């Protein structure tokens, strides 16, 4: 468990993400060494950069721009074949041009009408020490990436969640929580991701309880109707009752 100060920092960061989902604020601790500003976890300065949240469209456009063709070996394909690969280094450059909005450094960020950084501005922006910009970009990428551990956790929880006997998962990961909460609230009440953070928490709790009760109830119904024994015994009067045995017509 973190200290009170850490808890407040985490809460502040989460609030920023919830109420300002279009921006990602990245903070890097720095110190001045040998005359230039370098990242330093124990440094006494702090620099901030604000990036536009990476959208599907941004990623699609940048990937398209940085893709190149690679020939696959004949051993792999049995003939000549090619595949498209993203140039991950060039991707980082375009990411800065597309998504870096502002920062605490003394270089103003200028954008053209299409939202891209102007070439003249990029010339100055890219002239800062590479390790400092790398730190900003890496921290921004952390907000986008799904780690391998996270993906494994999603797989494990989904195996439980979507199994026939699944009754939900304890300590749901971000993906499961988002999927269930947003899915349910959007489907039932048309509440979008933009509105959900502003909703009264009591209303949210009440509706969540109701959704959970409804889900339990429908599960019980389905187990009564089709989820029980696969075979039935037809008794007098044509009424059926469940049986573990095979279907036998009684006289």
């Amino acid at each position, binding site marked *: 468990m973190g200290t009170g100060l850490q808890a407040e920092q985490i809460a502040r960061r989460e609030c920023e993400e919830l109420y300002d989902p279009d921006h990602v604020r990245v903070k890097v601790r720095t110190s001045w*060494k*040998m*005359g*230039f*500003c*370098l*990242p*330093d976890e124990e440094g006494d300065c702090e620099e901030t950069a604000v990036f536009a949240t990476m959208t599907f469209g941004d990623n699609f456009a940048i990937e398209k721009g940085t893709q190149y063709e*690679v*020939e*696959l*070996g004949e051993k*792999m394909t049995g003939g000549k074949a090619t*595949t498209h*690969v993203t*140039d*991950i*280094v*060039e991707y*980082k*450059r375009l990411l*800065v041009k597309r998504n870096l909005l502002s920062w605490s*450094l*003394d*270089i103003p960020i200028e954008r053209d009408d299409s939202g891209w950084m*102007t*070439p*003249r501005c990029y*010339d*100055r*922006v*890219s*002239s*800062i*020490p*590479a*390790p*400092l*910009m*790398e730190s900003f970009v890496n921290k921004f990428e952390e907000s986008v990436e799904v780690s391998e551990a996270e993906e494994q956790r999603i797989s494990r929880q989904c195996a439980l969640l979507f199994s026939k006997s699944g009754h939900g998962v304890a300590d749901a990961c971000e993906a499961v929580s988002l999927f269930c909460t947003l899915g349910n609230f959007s489907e039932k009440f048309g509440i979008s991701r933009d509105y959900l953070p502003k909703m009264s928490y009591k209303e949210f709790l009440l509706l969540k309880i109701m959704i959970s009760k409804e889900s339990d109830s429908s599960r019980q119904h389905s187990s009564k109707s089709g989820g029980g024994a696969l075979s039935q015994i037809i008794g007098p009067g044509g009424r059926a009752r469940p049986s573990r045995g095979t279907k036998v017509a009684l006289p």
Partner: protein
Amino acid sequence: MAVVQAKEQVKQAEAAQQLRVDEKLMRPGKYEITKDTTFTVQIHAREKDGRWVLMTGPGKGIDTNTVVFRMWNYNEEIEVRKMATSYDAGKRVHMIDNDALNRFKVQRLMVSWTFDKDNPRLRIQHSNRVLTDESWEAFTQLQPNFISFILEEMNKVLEFNG
């Protein structure tokens, strides 16, 4: 004869891209890297049995040499990494050739050294701000322990924030 003229809009866009005189004269900001933004690697060595052994600091009978590197900016880093990165179609991953990366760093960022003070053959020369092939050859002629030490100290600053 037809006279070809640029459209007015294009001219305006070009004008917008041109720096104003006061902006041209403005000094770089405190975060910007210039060609004078350098750092120095010091090598202390003592001759023993015909070989040079690295020492931790200056002292009696110890030779001290320096190598000056330029700090790289983000654009240069991107260019250099691109040159050293290739795609392995078999493993479906991007591979960075660290030897090539170190070579490009030395070729582009090394400014000067003192190894040429007694030996003009080791003089460092640049062409288009890149080390000439002869100068790179001279670098590779150093003892391997010197080269490893210089690369390690250079990477401490360039990759591991000093």
